[in-house]
């Protein structure tokens, strides 16, 4: 029985217990600086930021950038014109999605990552399979670094959650950066200011 064998070998070979270090905490810059840093980082990693005053502004963006025949998916109740889905569909049915927009929990300034969980996705594969991806981030919900991020996530329950930082990318061919590897070709952040 491998389980017993492995556990016995581990117990036998592990060194004397050392303690965990204290949690790291760093001073946070002002809210304005944090927002500025987030915008700078997400732009650097290939995303774009559009500042909006209300969720209806997203409808304008969509009508300016997409055609009526494009498949636009949204779980945001405020966006009434776009297809909502139950989550019971086969994930394969999401294949021809041109644009999908999601609510998110928060974003991180130091790396441009946005934290989103399964309940906000409708379906786990949607943020990955859509050709173009957009997320709504409230300006007040941007934290400075990953330590602050995990303070929020620490006790959160989810089946699946992910940090997404920019469009899908690869540099596997001679280190040339190409956007749009397998996941979304672009990432738009709708930064909701109040």
């Amino acid at each position, binding site marked *: 029985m491998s389980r017993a064998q492995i556990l016995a070998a*581990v117990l036998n070979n592990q060194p004397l217990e050392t303690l965990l270090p204290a949690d790291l905490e760093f001073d946070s810059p002002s809210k304005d600086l944090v927002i500025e840093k987030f915008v700078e980082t997400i732009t650097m990693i290939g995303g774009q930021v559009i500042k909006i005053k209300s969720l209806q502004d997203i409808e304008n963006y969509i009508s300016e950038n997409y055609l009526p025949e494009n498949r636009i998916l949204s779980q945001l109740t405020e966006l009434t014109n776009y297809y909502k889905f139950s989550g019971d569909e086969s994930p394969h049915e999401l294949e021809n999605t041109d644009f999908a927009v999601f609510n998110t929990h928060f974003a991180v300034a130091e790396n441009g990552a946005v934290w989103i969980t399964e309940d906000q996705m409708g379906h786990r594969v949607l943020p990955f399979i859509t050709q173009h991806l957009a997320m709504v981030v409230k300006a007040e919900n941007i934290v400075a670094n990953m330590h602050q991020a*995990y303070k929020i996530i620490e006790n959160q329950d989810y089946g699946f959650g992910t940090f997404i930082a920019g469009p899908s990318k690869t540099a596997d061919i001679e280190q040339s950066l190409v956007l749009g590897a397998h996941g979304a070709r672009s990432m738009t952040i709708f930064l909701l200011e109040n």
Partner: protein
Amino acid sequence: MNSIKHPELSTIFNEDEERVNWHDDTLWWIRAKRDKAAHGISEWEILRETASQIKDNVLSNLHQYLIDFEAKAQANGIVVHWAANAEEHNKIVLSLLQKKDIHQMVKSKSMLTEECHLNEYLEKNGIDVIDSDLGERIVQLAKEPPSHIVLPCIHKKKEEIGQLFHEHLGTEFGISDPQILTETARLHLRETFLTRRSALTGVNFAIAETGEFVVCTNEGNADMGAHLADIHIASMGIEKLIPKKKHLSVFLRLLTRSATGQPITTYSSHFKKPRKGQEMHIILVDNGRTVQLGRADFRNSLKCIRCGACMNTCPVYRRSGGHSYHNAIAGPIGAILAPNLDMKEYADLPFASTLCGSCTNVCPVKIDIHDQLYKWRQVIVKEGNTTAAKTMAMKVMDFTLSSPTRYKLAGKIGRWTIKHAPFTVNNKLNLWFKNREMPEAPKESFSEWFKKNK
């Protein structure tokens, strides 16, 4: 078993001098990006120290963490398997697929499955495996193993990749534009993701406290595979555990900054429960790790988070290429992990280093890599696993260095020879002459100079 060793394999790589220079420059460029990212964070050294201490705690409490992880993962609905070695790991994967009558699998990057030679095993047993990471797909088409743990086809020119795509994916002859080739792979692999019922991913971190695991990719291939398949199998080495979810803050800050200079991977996905109607399995693999845990001098190597920084900085790796290490994990870290698996087979690897310490300096979890390389050399020599030539050379050195008279005389002869008969050292028989010029000999030794000038 592969009996060609690092010196011979790097000689093959060194036949094309231009390619060696290009390989060297590319990796140094990535190392420079790593420096820029690391220097951009004032608390970088605090992060490294903290990560190292967390990993110390993991190794010292691994037994309990494994038990905790298993219980939590099971409570989350994940099926947990244990594999003592590569063979058992491969058998578990095969049996899971056979139970569901699945003959095709899509795989995202996992160095552990490279270590276990899973692809060959599954193919022999009638399972078609497609690697979905672009770099891995490219080396798979070329029927080669990856040459780097983060950049699997770093050794390939875009023209060669274009040729592979022309032969296998139907691109036009002569196309080598990375944008077009990536788009071709995107379309080809979308078709794969949508038709495979099984997906296998690696694991970057697994959390004892919650029973979830984290997979980091830039391309999104792990997610595309896992979220579309009926069955998701995750393979992880037992050392990948970390105690608590909050510790990810430290490791995710270090991982990609060390690897490619990015602030974080595009996707850092936390898999906690299978989705409705899906099966999720995790295989906890030992394959020599518990043995390494018991070797006090080498257990630190189990802290590795597989960023590849030690390879990018290593002057030997950059000029000899990943394949010269004839092991799934190349470079300095591979050279301290491999002898644990098979000391005879990999006795050459701890010598494939200058012991300059650059690897240790960039390691995000502060593994004492160059010290371990040095320690392995001593173990390997003691066990008699060095070549006859090296053993003889060491005996001659021992004879020379153990007597001041003999040492002085040898120096004199050496200086005279280089000056008056350079052809006796500047030739193929002298290994030090390979790919470099011999230095000019000084006129006198230090002790001669000191006598005159004291």
